């Protein structure tokens, strides 16, 4: 709550934060690090003869964009002052740390997506329908079972038979 108070959309809020917004400073640092790495990558692009490149080397345009992104990012740590004067609160959605359920959901999505080539599309869908509602606190087990039993089958049938989408059957070879 303290954090929320200190980042209220007011002049006072910006004073409490000072000139530099610490979170945006970190965001800027991440962006600048990314820009620096990508700029280094552009120096590794092959060069072509000026005649062929028509005076514009392949690296020139991405480098120009990276300069623009870096330039704009440098204003980020100070932007909260201007936003506070406009009554906007940039910290509204990030004043609290990432919700535990969001972290668990991210972990589940990563696992299920990485496992999908092995499970095959049908089993992946059934897993999602079984696990995600429970993960999100849905308690009606019969509804979940019906959902996991019917929805993936209907979706599979519609997409594979009607729209001719090829579904990988995975290592278990389960498909419709």
């Amino acid at each position: 709550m303290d954090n929320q108070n200190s980042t209220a959309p007011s002049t006072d809020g910006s004073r409490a934060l000072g000139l530099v917004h610490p979170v945006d400073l970190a965001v800027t640092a991440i962006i600048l690090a990314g820009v620096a790495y990508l700029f280094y990558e552009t120096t590794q692009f092959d060069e072509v003869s000026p005649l062929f490149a028509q005076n514009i080397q392949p690296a020139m345009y991405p480098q120009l964009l990276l300069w623009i992104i870096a330039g704009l990012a440098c204003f980020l740590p100070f932007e909260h002052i201007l936003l506070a004067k406009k009554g906007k609160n940039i910290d509204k959605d990030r004043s609290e740390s990432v919700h535990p359920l969001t972290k668990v959901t991210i972990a589940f999505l990563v696992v299920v997506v990485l496992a999908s080539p092995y499970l095959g599309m049908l089993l992946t869908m059934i897993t999602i329908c079984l696990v995600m509602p429970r993960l999100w606190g849905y308690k009606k087990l019969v509804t979940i079972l019906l959902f996991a039993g019917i929805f993936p089958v209907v979706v599979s049938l519609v997409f594979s038979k009607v729209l001719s989408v090829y579904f990988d059957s995975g290592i278990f070879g389960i498909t419709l």
Partner: protein
Amino acid sequence: MDAIIEGFSLLLEIENIILITLGVLIGVLVGALPGLSSPMAIALLTPFTIQLEPIPAIAMMAALYCAGTFGGSITAILINAPGAPPAVATALDGYPMAKRGEPGRALGLATVSSVSGGIISLIVFIVAAPTLAAVALEFRPPEYFALAVFALSMLASMTGKSSLRNLISGAVGVLLATVGIHLTTGVERFTFGIPDLDEGIHFVPVLIGLFAMGELLSQSSTLNNAVERIEAKAMKLPTWAELKELKNCILRSSGIGTFIGILPAEGSTVAAIIGYNEAKRFSKKKDEFGTGTPEGIVGPEAANNSAAGGAMVPTLALGIPGSGSTALILAALIMHGFRPGPYLLNETPEFLYAIFGAMLFANIAFLAIGLAGAKFFSLVTFIPKQLLWPAVFIFAVIGAYSSSSSFVDVYVMLVAGLIGYFMNRHGFGAAPLVMGLILGKMVEEAFSQSMIIYDNNFLALMESPIVLFFFALTAVNLSTPFWTGFKKRKA
């Protein structure tokens, strides 16, 4: 005349009517469900339209786009939770009117003003798009470059948390468009030795990830938010006397919405907010705003639906997206092998009339949906989020996978979704990034050609008055947020 007949005859085919009706129903459904949005639905639908003929596919998406804007008003009125951002202003008066026992009347006012606004903007669209395309035929690469830069600068005033973050998102999108083999020289850029990146970033998985996955993760933290639902038994159309009284408000808001829609990057949300403010400014009953006044419903509703038609003007005539949704429609056009811009309308004018017909059909369908289906669409909000979002995730996985039957695209979708979630958390919108991604290739191509024309002399670009005009607009646009901030500080 032949083009008009050909365009409309495409819509008379039963298969196309079914597709457009499906687009309308999906649009109203996603518009009505809080969290789901028409850009997300268009992103999810895009890979499945590949097998369709291009015109019905785009017509279906255009119908979905219109319907999504309208659908948002249903939940804005009945549960005070705008199903889509453009309906945010509708809730201000729609919900109080529903709460005092007139939900049918509120839905009726929203429907009629949506239909009116939509049709007015379509008339502007059918006149303005070919005219603008004819003008744009005279554009050379320098003018296109200046126009694209102007469109990107409009991101500064796009709806979102901050102009600066929108611009950074847009620039990152333009940078992403450089991934792959450089067309002029054949040099690989940012491919990191991954062959799948040689052709550039695949639009579909990125779009699905940014719009669907990012929102799914955001929703996971709002599962316990309770809402009060008001039951709507039937929609009640406004009387003639009421319509006569609201006529000026509807016309004014439709004009505002269409104009805002035509501006690159501006969309229905900005139109709705300005439509509401202007309705209040011109109203004789200013004090009643916020308590359930009819003007507070028709103002934003006419404006947000007319912005949808307006946004199609630059999208089809210039290849410059008028909003986040139209950026996705442009991506779909590119996927179907079209090169959006003036040549498209001049070479295939029937395309324009087919889109016009589909959007007109969608607008008229709102009346039927409002009359017959308001109760059903209010019931869809009862679907538990815990079942709805896994279903969305399944469609996201299938959508990403089916674009090239590759699990790599599913991974790309997941990564884009995670990035989208954290971007959104820190105020960087997905829509500006997508607009940058769409415009990126055009900017680079036009820039390279301009430099060749002017022998690498950037200042020589200014010889063209059109270039100067667009650069002047760009400068005004970029300085406006700082200028208004300074003005507020002085005040």
